[in-house]
């Protein structure tokens, strides 16, 4: 049984990084970024989560199988969100039936 024991330095380093990133995300949220606001916020959250998983949870010492499981979990969450959004982002469908004599109109023409 081989155990990998991380140094205290690594843990404290991650801790400091996490605190700094928390300040960053609060600061960045006050800037005028428009649409990018949410992207930046999620990106920072993702980096923080990765740090926790990689060091604190020891994914960096874990087997390929464990990593595959972690990735699969995130992938499935992605599938759920992506496909659900496939519906919500394309719902606009303004099809108006027309008599034979006229061309059918698709896409918001009334």
């Amino acid at each position, binding site marked *: 049984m081989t155990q990998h024991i991380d140094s205290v330095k690594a843990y404290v380093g991650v801790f400091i990084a996490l605190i700094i990133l928390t300040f960053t995300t609060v600061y960045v949220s006050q800037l005028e970024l428009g649409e990018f606001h949410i992207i930046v916020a999620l990106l920072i959250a993702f980096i923080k989560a990765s740090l926790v998983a990689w060091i604190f949870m020891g994914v960096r010492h874990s087997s390929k*199988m464990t990593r595959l499981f972690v990735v*699969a*979990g995130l992938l*499935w969450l992605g*599938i*759920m969100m992506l*496909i*659900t959004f*496939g*519906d*919500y*982002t*394309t*719902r606009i*469908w303004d099809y108006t039936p027309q008599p034979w004599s006229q061309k059918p109109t698709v896409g918001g023409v009334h």
Partner: protein
Amino acid sequence: MATIVQGTPEAVAEPVDYLNVSHTWKSWLFTTDHKRIAVLYLISITLMFVLGGAAAVAFRINLLSPEGVFSAETYNRLFSMHGIIMVFFFLVPSIPATLANFLIPIMIGAKDLAFPRINLLSWYIYVVGALFAIYAVVRGGVDTGWTFYAPFSSTYSNSYVLAAAFGVFIAGFSSILTGLNFIVTVHKMRAPGMTWSRLPLFVWSNYATGLIQVLGTPVLAITMLLLAFERIAHVGIFDPNIGGDPILFQHLFWFYSHPAVYIMILPGMGVISEIISCFSRKRVFGYNFVAFSSMAIAVLSFVVWGHHMFITGESMYSSIAFSILSFLVAVPSAIKVFNWTATMYKGSISFDTPMLYAFGFIGLFTIGGLTGLFLATLATDVATHGTYFVVAHFHYVMVGGMVMAYMGGLHFWWPKITGRMYSEAWSKFSALLVFVGFNLTFFPQFILGYLGMPRRYHNYPPEFQTLNVLSTAGASVLGLGYLLPIIYFLHSLKYGARAGNNPWGAAGLEWQIQSPPTTFNFDETPVVTEEAYNYGPVEEIVG
């Protein structure tokens, strides 16, 4: 057929096995033996099956006359309870919690599942969930259908939605724990030499099922929870009056419930692979394809759920994508059917009861699967959605497929589970009853649906009466076909002939050990040196 190396079996007159090792109540209710837990599950799901079946009998009687016998409310509660009990408390746990629970550790050469106590916990959770569902029935039932669609279930229904939804929520955790246990067991508990490419296909299909259970069921849990909040406090999340979207409920619900169809059918496919191979005395044709098609089904099943929502407000573009993806998922299922057929080709086929069920499975599942393609076609679905065509389709898959496989598996492994043989004549007769009764029940429903009879109505126009009467007649034959096995199985426990360790001359580790097995299955951990289904050239049956 020496597929394993192990110690010599004990030559004692009355060998100790997992059943007679102890007879106290406590030894059953606190057992961590996967075989005993499988038996506990077997008893509980049979009770739930009888309950769900009784509801079906009642509403089939109602449909004998166009005006109906019961009130609309009673009828709605009957079919809802039938659906909820059969789906969540019978079909989902059926093969995984009983046969697979019993067999997976033995098939891979382990003493038990990876987490025996979690296995027991899952049974207790199941029982608590079932009690909630039964409570809902006793108090007066649920009328939402098994799908619990909001906002009807959250706002308008005057029935015991909360109790039933909570039962489903709880039972979900038992399903998660079973799946988790199987995944870890298959990964970590295999005997030396039991490589992935030597795993019996039954193990493969239950592994794939475990993945679906683990990935899908939590979403059902949160969906039921959101529904409960909505019903209790009217928070508005699924209420269109304040901008909530009921279709979101359907998205979340079907994200679980379409894959759940494969939780129900995949283990059945595994059983069929075992049976066909054994009674054709041949290795399963295209082992790798059958194994990987299980995995492909597990993955693809998660990207097709929108085909249940074609006639809701779902986006048209989304529907088109779901339609195409639904066609894709038919491919791995078809691979399995073709490979089973190819396995039988030039095999030495014998017509024992399990094989009869397997034949039934292949035919009925094919019909069920192909009519699924009709429903995955957008334009056809608009016409047939919500009609008896859908009812017939999923009963061909679930009952014609899954329950057939379950019955086949029970008849196949009964001698291993109990050490006793059941009556051959009665079992063949009841297999025939099930097949005839099933087709008589559900084939008319295809025609009814095609003619436009909507599902979930307690009355119908008089011109549909003939077909409905036929269907009810079939249901009584089918009911008898399910009742008989309960009787002759129980009878065999006491009066059945001793089955011996390997009554079918089958390959596989489970047939190399004593019947019934000892508590830890193997005296010594077996070392596997050969592939699964090593039947070699057609040879005489070893008794």
